[in-house]
């Protein structure tokens, strides 16, 4: 007999969405700062940095793809309803996804054949993605 999807399961999914989206926001900034530091120091070969950035673009797209997947399930209406009880709106999911998706979409094709281009790409990410709200320094 299958375990029913109760509000406990719905809460778990909502918390996973929070962890994924705020974590992705944090990772996009942190990784851009890491790549920028390496490019400024010219301590890592350009081809390695470019490969890492391309790999990260794929990893970001994977994470961004999880939300539309669960939004297509019958449980999504319950997840969204739980979020509404917190004072949120369904539009907020799109508002969070839009800037993250823009960075993920641009990171793969952006020019990164020189250190200057890599630094410019990282600067664009850092400018576009602010740090998530946090109680403690991150």
């Amino acid at each position: 007999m299958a375990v029913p999807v109760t509000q406990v399961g719905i809460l778990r999914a909502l918390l996973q969405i929070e962890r994924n989206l705020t974590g992705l926001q944090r990772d996009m900034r942190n990784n851009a700062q890491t790549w920028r530091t390496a490019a400024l120091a010219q301590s890592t070969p350009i081809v390695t940095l470019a490969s890492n950035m391309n790999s990260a673009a794929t990893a970001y797209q994977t994470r961004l793809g999880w939300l539309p997947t669960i939004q297509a399930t019958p449980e999504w209406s319950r997840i969204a309803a739980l979020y509404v009880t917190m004072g949120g709106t369904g539009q907020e999911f799109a508002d969070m996804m839009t800037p993250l998706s823009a960075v993920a979409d641009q990171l793969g094709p952006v020019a990164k054949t020189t250190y200057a281009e890599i630094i410019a790409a990282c600067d664009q990410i850092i400018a576009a993605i602010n740090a998530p709200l946090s109680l403690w320094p991150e």
Partner: protein
Amino acid sequence: MALPQGIAFRASNAFVTDIAPDFCENGVPDADTQIDTGEADYPTTSAQGNNLGWETVDVDGVQCRNRNNSNARLSGMHQCTNANDVNIFRMDLPSTGAKTVRLASGDFNYGADAYVELFDTSSSLGILSSGTTSAAAKWKDATNVERTSAADWVSNNASASKVFTTTILRLNMGSGSVGGTLSFFHVEDSGGAPPGPTIYTDNLVLMPQAML
């Protein structure tokens, strides 16, 4: 997502400079010395472009420490708080197939429980290391052989080859009755480049002894 990926377990990013292609799995938040259940950090995207992190942290928490900065890969560790803990670290692989894994399980300051088991999603691929290290500054490798110093681990740690039929790699740190410690983990496609820094001279490539 791409391999190789190294993961150095310690408390804070800034303690040492990581060796490519390593990512620092630090305490959450950075420099915290205990990861609590609610602070499990999977998914985190590493600077090398892989999704990884602590997926399940026992209610007792994971202990994180910086130890000694003379060797970046062995500079710290994450460890079970109690012997009955099971903590699960996850990494999403870019592909299935044969992978070569390397491990350092130990503690610069003390002898350490060393139970680390590798999983392909939920199927065990074997216990990489077990028991305890015999003293401080000794690390067990992926074949459960104790390396007697940092230099010994760097030069002689042996790899293990495992075949993944899924793209979810999990490491269980602790068995539920025996604790475990993670200092360093490295995974690459079998046949890939050596994990250590390759030293180039004019016409000679010196490789880590373990790869010869």
